[in-house]
Structure formats: structure tokens, C-alpha cells
């Protein structure tokens, strides 16, 4: 009788335990360490090899707010990486709900690093059509985007003068919760031989392994864990470059600490992650014990 009950637990009990498993570690952090994975390191290296003040990295914000918990920390970490190394960035969005996020991220990080819009980075904004836009840019970026996000004609933007198509872009990073990296590979990669890396949600990361092996992708950042790894790499880089030290000197203690918290937000969530996983595994075990015990009794 009890086993029967266990087999058909009210789903809401599971819901409650999951909620608690996430809330408690956020209130009382444990501080478990993370390990670095190769595809993240590869992405980091690909960005790192772009020469400063030269041709820009193209960052495509192809996700919507729903994917922000995983992809937004990645976006910030990549932008920080570029700006601390003085790599220029060309930001755009192919997702209908992406432009607001792109604007939020670029202005915030640019301000933090004192970068100038139009010279150190350009924000092209959103253009509907996915694959169509990617192809169009292979011909001519100035034709695909007549103006930037702020309605300034592309021709008038200083940084855009030397940038015409993928020949002038050393690396594209597509951040997406859907299949948009596939479109980048299919159109920009196969057709124009563009080097591409992707940042994706943990769910789709497994789908992109075949493309890493065939070199259609040079790197891959997967989920919150990937973001926390990239975050860690950037934090270490900033320490090496002395960016961190400079920041500590120029900011008040409170401001500096606040920035530090925001610079390791992805890592903070990893504790809740672990506990929630264990709760789910515990449920699977309970479910199976009940199942086998019941089956035995029936015999």
C-alpha cells in the first residue's frame, strides 16, 4: 500500500523539494570548485588570438530573455575578454527578442571598460531572416544592415569603414538557445569559410559535439557551467594583465566588491546546481526501489 503511494507521489512534492534545493544553497553557499573543459578553453584561445584594435570579433546575440540565465553571463564574459584585450567587437542579433539584450550587455560592459561606440564596438541591432541575413552579410554587411541599432547610417561609422564582409571578420561567436549556430555553420561557415564558435544552452551543447569534431566549430561554451569556466578564464586573464589591479585602485571598495560579485555570478549558481541534481537522482532511486519492491510483491 505504501509502495503504491510512493509510485504515484504528488508531483507537487517533487516541485517543492526542487525549489528548496535551489533556494538553500543560494542563502548558504558551499563553494564547490569547477573544472575547465577543452571546448571552452578553445573558444577562449580563439578570441585571445585576435589582434588588438584590428578586425573585429562578430558577436551574434541570437537568444531571447528566456535563455538569459545561461547565455547572458557568457555574453558579458566574452565582451569583458575582448575589451580588456582591446579587441574590437561587432554586435548584432538575429533573434527577434535579442536586440534588447544585446543593447543591455554592450552598453554596460563598454561603459565599465571605457570603450567608445562606433570606434571600439558597433551595435548593428536586429535584422529578421536568420539564414538570409547571414548570407547577405557574406556579400556585404553594409547592404544587410543599412543603419546600426541607433539608426546611424553604417557608412558614417568609423569602425565600419574597413569592414565589408566575412573576410574582415576573424571570428564569429554565435550565442543561441536554438539551432542558429547551425545556420551560421551552414551559410557563413560552408559558403564563406568563416571561423565560428558557439555559446549555447547546456541542453543543446550535446548536439554540437559532432560539429566540433568536423571543425565546423572551433569552440563551444555550454550552459552555466561553460559560462562559469569562461568567467574564470577572463578573471585570471584580467589579473595577469593588471586590469583587475587598476580597477581596484580606481574604484571605491564597495564598487569594486560589487563588480567582483557580478564578475563571478555564473560560478555562484553552481552550488544550487549540484544539490538539485542530487535531489533528482535521489528521486530516481526512490522511484526504482519502489518499482522493484512492488514488482516482487506482485509475484
Amino acid at each position, binding site marked *: 500500500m505504501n509502495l503504491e503511494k510512493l509510485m504515484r507521489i504528488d*508531483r507537487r512534492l517533487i516541485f517543492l523539494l526542487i525549489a528548496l534545493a535551489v533556494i538553500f544553497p543560494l542563502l548558504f553557499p558551499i563553494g564547490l570548485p569547477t573544472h575547465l573543459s577543452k571546448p571552452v578553453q578553445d573558444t577562449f584561445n580563439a578570441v585571445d588570438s585576435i589582434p588588438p584594435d584590428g578586425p573585429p570579433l562578430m558577436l551574434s546575440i541570437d537568444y*531571447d530573455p*528566456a535563455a538569459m540565465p545561461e547565455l547572458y553571463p557568457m555574453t558579458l564574459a566574452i565582451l569583458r575578454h575582448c575589451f580588456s584585450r582591446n579587441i574590437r567587437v561587432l554586435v548584432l542579433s538575429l533573434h*527577434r*527578442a535579442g536586440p534588447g539584450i544585446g543593447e543591455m550587455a554592450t552598453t554596460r560592459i563598454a561603459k565599465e571598460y571605457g570603450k567608445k561606440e562606433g570606434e571600439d564596438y558597433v551595435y548593428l541591432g536586429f535584422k529578421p531572416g536568420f539564414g538570409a541575413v547571414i548570407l547577405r552579410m557574406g*556579400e556585404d554587411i553594409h547592404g544587410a544592415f543599412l543603419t546600426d541599432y541607433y539608426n546611424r547610417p553604417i557608412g558614417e561609422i568609423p569602425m565600419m569603414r574597413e569592414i565589408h564582409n566575412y573576410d574582415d571578420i576573424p571570428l564569429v561567436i554565435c550565442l543561441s*538557445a*536554438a*539551432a542558429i549556430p547551425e545556420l551560421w555553420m551552414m551559410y557563413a561557415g*560552408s*559558403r564563406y*569559410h568563416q571561423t565560428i564558435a558557439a555559446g549555447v*544552452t547546456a*541542453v*543543446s551543447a*550535446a*548536439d554540437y559535439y559532432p560539429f566540433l569534431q568536423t571543425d565546423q566549430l572551433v569552440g563551444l561554451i555550454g550552459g552555466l557551467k561553460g559560462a562559469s569556466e569562461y568567467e574564470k578564464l577572463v578573471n585570471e586573464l584580467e589579473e595577469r594583465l593588471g586590469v583587475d589591479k587598476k580597477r581596484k585602485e580606481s574604484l571605491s571598495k564597495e564598487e569594486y566588491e560589487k563588480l567582483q560579485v557580478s564578475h563571478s555570478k555564473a560560478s555562484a549558481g553552481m552550488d544550487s546546481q549540484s544539490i538539485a541534481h542530487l535531489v533528482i537522482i535521489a528521486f530516481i532511486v526512490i522511484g526504482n526501489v519502489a518499482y522493484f519492491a512492488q514488482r516482487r510483491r506482485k509475484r
Partner: protein
Amino acid sequence: MGQEWFSLDRLNVLIGVVVYTALLLYFIYQAKKGKELFVRKIAGLEAVDEAIGRATEMGKPILYIPGLSTISDVATLASLNILSKVAKKAAQYETRLIVPCTDPIVMPVCQEVVKAACLDGGRPDVYREEDIYYITYSQFGYVAAVDGIMVREKPATNFFLGMFWAESLILAETGASTGAIQIAGTDAISQLPFFITACDYTLIGEELYAASAYLSREPLSLGSLKGQDWTKLIIGGLVLTGVILSTFGLRFFANYFTTG
């Protein structure tokens, strides 16, 4: 761009397309001549009749989600072909069919498909255009609304066929909690595990594309299925050759498959 009239680095793609098309057309032609063609059992599709019948018995509607992608996504087109068969059965049984859409172009196409199916099933009178409507282009706005439909209308049967993203499990779990029979099918690899765990039947990848041939048993569609299988054999042979040559350090063969 260039002045040339053919891009040579795409020759292999052209050959692939031509060979495949030729095979398909050959088998379609064979089928047209009346050759008997066999199709193996596809569990999810065996259940379609039962699922529609159940909804009829219970006097509850059927919910059909044609995926969340655009009309230019081939998965959506495949789903519409299945919708046509489901709608025909539903019309014959006089069972209400609800088709909420998230893509504004898919919506009018769904209307056309269902209308034609009702006509085809001899029941143009049961077509209800107001049950096939656009909700919002927002992914989760759409999901919120469909969840609402599931718990309020309590459909007896849910179909999730086409392209899906993360919302797959929200839809499937909510549907499971209302006790509906659920038949899913998608070519979205990342969503298959969730449909498999939360739905009663799941069409895996290519099965979605085979479904319309299976349901309609139209010789033309069955012929193309046969062509697909022959191509698989050819692919298997080519891959095996490539593997053997690569094992002996000869990569030239594999390199023929590099596309430009």
C-alpha cells in the same frame, strides 16, 4: 561575386542532390506503375486512430501543435501533411480539433489543410476556422497559452508534431498531468529525450517524415520512402569505403565530401 556560371567546389553537393532526386523519382515512378510497397510498423502512427477514437468516445477535443517553427522549416511541412490525415479522421468522427499556432504564416496554411481535409472526409460542415488561430510569436507566451488550453479544455489527445525547442517538456508534462494520450514527433534531436520520457508515443527523427506516407499509403509517397532507404544503403557503403581507406591512411576519399 564572380563571373563563373558554376561553383566547382559544390560539385559534390550537386551530385548528391541529383543522385538522390533520381533515386526518389525512379521509385516514385515504380510505385505509380502499381508495384506493391512494404512499410514497417511505426508504433506512434499505429496509435493515431486509437487516439482520435478515444477523444471521440470521451467527447473531448484533440489538440494539434504543428511545432513552433516557420513554414519554410521542412519539419513543419511534414507536420502539416500529418495534420491533414488527422483532421480528416477527426472530421469523420465529428471530433473537435484545436490547432493553436505561433507562426503567423503557418496559421493560414493550417486552416487550408484542415478545411481541405474536412472536405475530403466528406464533412465540410464540421470545419471550425475559429479553432485554428495564431496566439503570439513569443515562444513562451505561446506555451503559457497552450498550457492554459490543456488544463481548461482537457483535450483527450495531444499531438506534438514538427519542430520543437525547449518548450517540448513543458507541453508534454502539462499534457501528461491532464491524462491525455500524447503522440509526439520531431527532428529536433535535443528534444527527443523529453518527448520519449513524457509522451505515450514518439516519432524519432526521420519517422516524422515517413509518417505521411505511412498514414496515407499513397503509392507516390511510399515510393519516395523506398528511395530514401536505397540512399541509406548507398551512404552506408560510401561511409564504409571511407572508413576502410582512412584506416590505411588514405584520406582522399573522405575529402571528396568536403563541401564549399
